[in-house]
């Protein structure tokens, strides 16, 4: 249907709204990053690139960036493995398949704070089930504090976040799996290919476009995770789980250095947009090669 005026009338409310609530604040963040505002509401002066020199010259930003990269990559690996295995199971025919495909997403639709309560309780040393289970299995001798050491805190957070997100990834993979034509498998079966051969020669290569899209979207989505980390460890112990979003929040609302927080925000945005730009270009190139 061609009716440009009407189309613009349909799009503009959403567009103007997004520009006002997301676009304009981004500009404000950029302006703030060139000033020296401390506490919210106080006046600032123009100080040029001073904040950028401070942030890029200090260790805090780079350490948080490193943790964010570890966070994103580990979540990607754990979730891809869990989701692929789950999707391969749910892609088969069995009674109740619809119900399974709907309710798998349960962990993703409950509030994050509920996820936090669930896991704090399961992992707690009084009444939690995980410690007794691990003791019974012989993995540990006495109850451990999962958020007590630097490494175990990060690893535990990654497992909890993956538990919350892998069903979402599973549904996306299922969408990709259902697009693979069934005759391909039939033909392979006739040719005598086994289960593993069929996975390796058909499923895996044909799932690549799906995996690539998930890689880009998943990277951005896990990068942004804040509440699970904040509510479980608040970035601790000793900053071990302080990713970039946590650093921004702490700098602004605990450290009262608003302009510096805005500076980290601007740098983060540039990083993510740069990643999205190059990733989509690489995907388009891969598409063209196929």
């Amino acid at each position, binding site marked *: *249907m*061609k009716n*440009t005026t009407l*189309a613009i009338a349909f*799009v503009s*409310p*959403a*567009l103007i*709204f*997004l520009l006002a*609530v*997301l676009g*304009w*604040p*981004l500009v404000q*963040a950029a302006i*703030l990053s060139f000033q020296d505002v401390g506490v*919210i*509401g106080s006046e600032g002066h123009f100080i040029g690139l001073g904040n950028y020199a401070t942030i890029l010259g200090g260790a805090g930003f780079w350490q948080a960036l490193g943790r964010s990269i570890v966070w994103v990559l580990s979540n990607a690996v754990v979730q891809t493995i869990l989701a692929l*295995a789950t999707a*391969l*199971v*749910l892609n088969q025919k*069995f009674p109740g398949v619809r119900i*399974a*495909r*709907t*309710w798998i997403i349960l962990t993703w*639709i409950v*509030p*994050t*704070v*509920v996820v936090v*309560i*669930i896991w704090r*309780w399961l992992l707690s040393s*009084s*009444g939690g089930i995980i410690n*007794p289970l691990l003791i019974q299995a012989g993995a540990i001798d006495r109850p451990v504090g999962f958020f007590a050491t630097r490494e175990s805190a990060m690893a535990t957070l990654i497992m909890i976040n993956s538990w919350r997100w892998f*069903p979402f990834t599973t*549904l*996306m993979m299922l969408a*990709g799996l259902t697009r693979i034509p069934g005759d391909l498998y039939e033909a392979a079966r006739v040719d005598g290919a086994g289960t593993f051969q069929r996975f390796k020669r058909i499923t895996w290569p044909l799932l690549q476009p*799906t995996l690539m899209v998930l890689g880009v979207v998943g990277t*951005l*989505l896990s990068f*942004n995770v*804040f509440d699970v980390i904040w509510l479980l460890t608040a970035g601790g112990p000793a900053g071990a789980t302080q990713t970039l*979003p946590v650093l*921004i*929040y702490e700098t602004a*609302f605990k450290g009262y250095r*608003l302009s510096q927080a*805005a500076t980290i*925000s*601007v740098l*983060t*945005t540039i990083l*993510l947009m740069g990643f*999205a730009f190059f990733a989509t270009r690489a995907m388009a190139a891969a598409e063209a090669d196929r």
Partner: protein
Amino acid sequence: MRRTLGQSLSLYGGLLLIALVIGLPFWWVLTGSIKLPKEIIQRVPTMVPQSFTLQHFEKLLQASDFPVYLLNSMVVALFSTAFTVLLALPAAYAFFRMEFPGRNALYKTILLAYAFPGVVVLIPLYGLFAKVGLIDSPVALVIVNVAFALPFSIWMMRSFLSSVPREIEEAAVVDGAPTLTILVRILMPLIAPGIASVAIFAFISSWTEYLFASVLIVSDARRTIPVGFAGIIGQYQIDWGLLLAGATAAIIPVVILFALVGRWFVSGLTDGAVK
């Protein structure tokens, strides 16, 4: 086609494992909420409750601020849902059914907004809301929730709109019906599942939102469930019975919603997904 014994074993074994990984944590929370306090903190936890009490729920409803948080969350979520649908529907129609200059570029830009880190605009938004007197107001939360739900909602409408044959609209045009009439009378009923899945997505996003609610809301009486609960978790002595009852109560509304329209939501999430 028949499955071999090995294939059946791996299928049902896999299903059982998935059910355990997802279901067991919920099972412990649900059953924990009706156990007596001394059973809750027992050193070796019980799989099936040995005691039964409603004292945690009584405390939750009578002695805590939970009913207030619940009401606040409900109001914010319902308004966020309504405005998201109102904005997403016409925009999605224009993007997927009409042509106008710059359509593709605009659509991609809006999609990018979905992956946008909320914490980046939190600081300037706080300043803007302070200027117009919206700090500590549920209106601010609704505005933020709609903005973050909108891009994904527009994208989700795609598969539902493309499932409607274009001939239906063309026939209406030939009959001389004005475009708005076509949209409301003819298209709306056909894409009802799509509207439902956008609504459920917007509701869940709002129901779950913590970051903005924790900063933009100041007074205890206006807190939503996520922030209200976070306050209880932060206390020195954790009352697990109360928290587990609260968690159970916070799960119920989304589970009911999902039982009604979850199937459409999942298809909205996956159908147009990989493109």
